[in-house]
């Protein structure tokens, strides 16, 4: 069985809201796939459909080539963290995992193993009611790992984690992928995935906006632009404009140049004896790339803040 999660043409309507509008993507094994999009873009709904919890109006979701519902002991194929808060407050962490293990016919030994894996051994017998959100995230991840599945799906696992937890989580996700598992991680914050995901599925308004590798996305967002730092801004602008480049002032001593390669910029400035301190290829941040992609599909946007954000996006793109 190929360890892929394959979602095809999912459509689902909740009353007047179209939650999924033709969602299609495939999660490949051996890499971390980031599943990003603004709140309400359909990430959680997609995951619920994959797990057979919600029925799509149209489309299919296949786990390793078969519908989730036809899997025996499904957690041994696909482990999932949907909602870290989904705990019985009076039940201890260990007992929470124990019933999950029993439902999959797994031995109690696995419970202790996964508790160790996520670093919760010392609080295993404490009631879940006293857990911080970060600890609940770890407990949820432990549950997903119980059945040693080849596919994993985490919904917003970084939520509520402290910086140390975020670092741990990144390393943990990478190590799961390096073992050959297919890992789908959703987030509404691109920065959380910057150093984690190999592949990105960017969604907005219930459908895929971009399905691309991290490297390609960054390159596309960066464009063919060069950043120049110089104290002689007017001279530099004159020289470069004459050479046919489009030049934008981005700071007192910084220019953004498009239409010319970096070597050519250096050559022109040197020939004209214009001083400069730095010439570098522009690297768009993942955040910027993401905002560009999703600016059209942000569902809930504060009027003023949203307008400012959109302006900033355009500014950055220019």
């Amino acid at each position, binding site marked *: 069985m190929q360890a892929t999660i394959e979602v095809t043409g999912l459509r689902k309507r909740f009353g007047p809201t179209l939650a999924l509008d033709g969602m299609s993507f495939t999660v490949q094994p051996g890499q971390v796939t980031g599943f990003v999009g603004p709140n309400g873009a359909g990430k959680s709904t997609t995951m619920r459909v994959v797990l*057979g919890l919600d*029925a*799509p109006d149209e489309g299919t979701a296949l786990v390793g080539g078969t519908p989730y519902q036809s899997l025996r002991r499904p957690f041994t194929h696909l482990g999932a963290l949907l909602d870290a808060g989904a705990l*019985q407050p009076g039940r201890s962490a260990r007992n929470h995992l124990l019933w999950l293990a029993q439902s999959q*016919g797994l031995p109690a030994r696995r419970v202790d193993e996964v508790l160790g894996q996520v670093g919760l051994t010392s609080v295993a017998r404490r009631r879940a009611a006293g857990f911080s959100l970060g600890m609940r995230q770890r407990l949820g991840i432990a549950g997903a790992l119980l059945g040693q599945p080849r596919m994993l799906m985490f919904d917003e696992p970084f939520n509520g984690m402290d910086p140390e937890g975020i670092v741990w989580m990144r390393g943990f996700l990478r190590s799961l992928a390096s073992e050959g598992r297919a890992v789908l991680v959703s987030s509404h914050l691109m920065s959380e995935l910057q150093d984690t995901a190999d592949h990105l599925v960017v969604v907005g308004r219930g459908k895929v906006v971009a399905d691309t590798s991290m490297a390609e996305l960054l390159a596309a967002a960066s464009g063919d632009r060069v950043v120049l730092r110089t104290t002689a801004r007017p001279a530099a602008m004159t020289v470069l404009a004459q050479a046919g480049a489009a030049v934008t002032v981005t700071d007192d001593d910084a220019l953004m140049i498009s239409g010319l390669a970096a070597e050519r910029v250096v050559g022109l400035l040197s020939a004209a004896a214009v001083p400069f301190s730095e010439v570098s290829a522009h690297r768009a941040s993942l955040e910027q790339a993401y905002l560009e992609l999703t600016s059209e599909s942000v569902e809930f946007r504060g009027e003023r803040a949203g307008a400012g954000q959109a302006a900033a996006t355009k500014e950055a793109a220019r």
Partner: protein
Amino acid sequence: MSARTIARPEPGQRAAADRFGDLLRAEWTKFRTVRGWLIAMVIGMLLMVAFGLLGGSANIACGTPGGKTLTGKACEPPVTLGPGGEPVTDDFSVIYQPLTGNGSITARLISLTGKYPSTSQAGPNVPMTSGLQPWSKAGIIIKNGLKPGSAYAAMLATGAHGVRMQYNFTGDLAGLPGRPTAAAPRWLRLTRHGDTVTGYDSADGRHWVQVGSVVLAGLHGTVQAGMFATTPGHDVINTGFGGGSFQGGPAEATGVFDKVSLTGAGPTWSTATVANRMGGGMPTPQPTKAGGTFTVTGSGDIAPVIAGPGGGGLPSATVSTHLIGAFAALLVVVVVAAMFITTEYRRGLIRLTFAASPDRGRVLAAKAVVIAAVTFVAGLIAGTVTVIIGLRASAASGVYVFPYTWPTAVRVVAGTAALLAVGAVLALAIATMVRRSAAAIATVIVAVVLPYFLAVAILPLGAANWLLRLTPAAGFAIQQAAPQYYQVSGQYAPASGYYPLAPWAGFAVLCLYAAVACFFAVRLLRRRDA
């Protein structure tokens, strides 16, 4: 991405089946690891014990002719047991001859009349009204000696139920209808052959119809055969709101016989008043013989004693009396059973449950088995403890404890536990449908506990009985310990432990409700997004 067309999967359907045992273990772990639920279960069972023991601890005091007041055990009335071991009333007047070996007695009953007090006060000077009670009776009898409680068979006419063949207090068979008069007399015949007594009736003395044939074990070689009369008291049963009241006074019945013939007996007639004073009878004149006509007047009854008012005023307890607290346990059980699933909905845990086990029907089944098993075991322990301690306390305080058979005791105690268990399943199923604790608990309490409470404590008998036929509260019938006798008038009310449906029929009504609720719960589970 390929453009394969695959049928849209329904959530929770066509799910691959994991081992049901795994699911059961998981749900059991869920239940036992929430301390609040375990504590609630224990509290529920303690409530059942507490209610049962409080309800049964009567303080009985009685005066004696010496003026000394006795309490407790010393007040327990002497109880006569019939051949079947049940307490009986055996008060009647009889004119008889000994009958040795096989033989028969035949008589024509030409009149059955009676008198009863016209006011509810009893006493020697109470004015009497003419009239019969429905179960006033006069007829012929073959009895194994005159000791109260001894075996007998009788052919008799009644005030309102026609001719009957009755035997050994609990046996009752119907013969010719109608009340005997001079114009339409009733011919009655009993024949003895070995231990077998056969009864016949006839409207004309020529055409005889066998009413029944019964074996009276241990019948002596010589038995008494003769004409008898007796009648239960005039019962006025008020079943208004707030429970029933019972008023009554002793009555008398008179039978006039002629054309009497005995085979196998001597010529000498004796008269006797058999009385164990359980029937609340009144003094009556001795039977008389004038030529071929015999007049017998009696008061009391020949019948089993029933529990509750109308049963000879006996402070009594049955094996189920102390299980009155089952409703309190049920209240708690319903809450726990509903929360067993509603907390999962409230916390979103249900998604994890259904992701782990996509066949939602099986998840509900596992939950039902777990909650039912836990409740049954807890209820069985609590019920057994309550009954054992309660009956001992009752007996020690002078309350007469009705004899019971092991099958009845097991049915009542295990049935009560099963009642709680099925109630829990019903609550679980309704909670699954409505997904909210408060709504589910309210629904089940209104459907099960409230009708029971209304029927037992508040409503008049008719309404009470309908509630206990139609609502899931019918299941409480499983607790009925004392049999209801057609041939004994009495207040067969839920408050006295009598239910309108037979024990297993009532229980089946509850089970039906639970099954229907489970059916719709599973349907909803499969259709609904989790």
